[in-house]
């Protein structure tokens, strides 16, 4: 669990792809591979892949979701998927200058 590192609301957290992780586009979405742990994770929709890819460009998940035109009613589900990705070591909380 990364809970200790993460703001209580994942939507308000800044995220980035963890070092050593590569994303490969696939027809269904993307594959994420962690070269260090050799873990492989399926991102099952193109939208999720877009959001994950752009995490580092946005101050928080909420902004990343809005920029990817994800409807707010799905944000909770995205939030959960992101926390699962963080638990798998694929993404990590990012220090931001504003914090």
């Amino acid at each position: 669990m990364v809970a200790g590192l993460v703001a209580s609301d994942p939507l308000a957290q800044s995220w980035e792809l963890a070092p050593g992780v590569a994303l490969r586009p696939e027809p269904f979405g993307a594959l994420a591979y962690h070269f260090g742990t050799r873990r492989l994770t399926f991102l099952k929709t193109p939208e999720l892949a877009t959001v994950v890819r752009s995490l580092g460009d946005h101050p928080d998940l909420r902004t990343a979701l809005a920029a990817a035109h994800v409807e707010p009613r799905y944000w909770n589900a995205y939030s959960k998927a992101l926390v699962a990705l963080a638990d798998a070591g694929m993404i990590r909380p990012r220090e931001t200058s504003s914090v």
Partner: protein
Amino acid sequence: MGQFELGLDAPICLTWELTYACNLSCVHCLSSSGRRDPRELSTAQAEAVIDELQRMQVFYVNIGGGEPTVRPDFWHLLDYSVAHQVGVKFSTNGVRLTPDRASQLARTDYVDVQVSLDGATAQVNDRVRGAGSYVTALRALDNLAEAGFGNAKISVVVTRENAGQLDDFKRLADDRGATLRLTRLRPSGRGADVWDELHPTMAQQRELYSWLLANGENVLTGDSFFHLAGFGESLPGLNLCGAGRVVCLIDPIGDVYACPFAIHENFLAGNVLHDGGFAKVWRESELFTDLRSPQTSGACTKCQHFDACRGGCMAAKFFTGLPLDGPDPECVQGYGEAALAGDRVVPAASQDHSRTAPTKSAPVFVPLGVGPVAPPVHACAESPLAGLALETV
């Protein structure tokens, strides 16, 4: 797992046999290796393949053979691959894993090493892998452990003769900080000649299944035992044949097959040199397009275990002469045994690099006839993709 079945832009589990040359001549060799093929890819051609894998974002490649380390440019290709973001897992019989090479490997990131061992004792191992091969493998594993190479793999093909040694294999691995990897014996290559005598009995399969459930967390299987799911719950990992969908083989001359266990012209999709490159063969070949279209599964679709087993292994059916749309020869429902007893024609091999004259250390495999050689597994006494935790988000 719908996303698998329709195919991916690049394979997940790509095996690349670098050479058919081998210092050993194991009786069950999946690629009938021994002699080097004169058409073997050159260093420059191999580098071009790696460049293409990098462009396709193939995250890692399983390098095998033959014995890959007998290629003089093996260590160069390994470094070249890692430097191009293609991780390497290689399988070896250990012959070249000197203390120096072991410390070189310990200093290299993104390399996994699998040392093959098919018996927990020299007696059981050398009978199939050849005289001295047990000592060679253990020396390699000890060199790796002493060099501080973390988490080497001991790769075991489960046979009728070693199925009773699973705990001993586990101990051999634990003692060296290594991980045990168990895989299924398929009737591929020279394996076709010995499969009848060497494949585990139904009772052993059941014991193996229980053993995997009890030890599964710490043992790798390359997802090769999904046909045992019918004994109860599914084993973790990919529960379907990935040939041409997630799995693929590039052979030493650049031929692309649907699976490392399916080296036969029926499963040959093309060649990386002559058919426009690996990406084109992977994405566009007729064979792979076919394998990705919905498959018919005949009698299996009525089986209650179909969701978990999907009719088992394509290669196992093909090389035992069973129909591809029927049950696996080791079907836990017993349908395979019945099918094996019926009329069938075992297909002739379409290639063979076995040495014609036996070497001094070549195994002399004399079928022992009735009864298992090793004691059966005591009551209660491998993710896809070998070592890979697979999950979906």
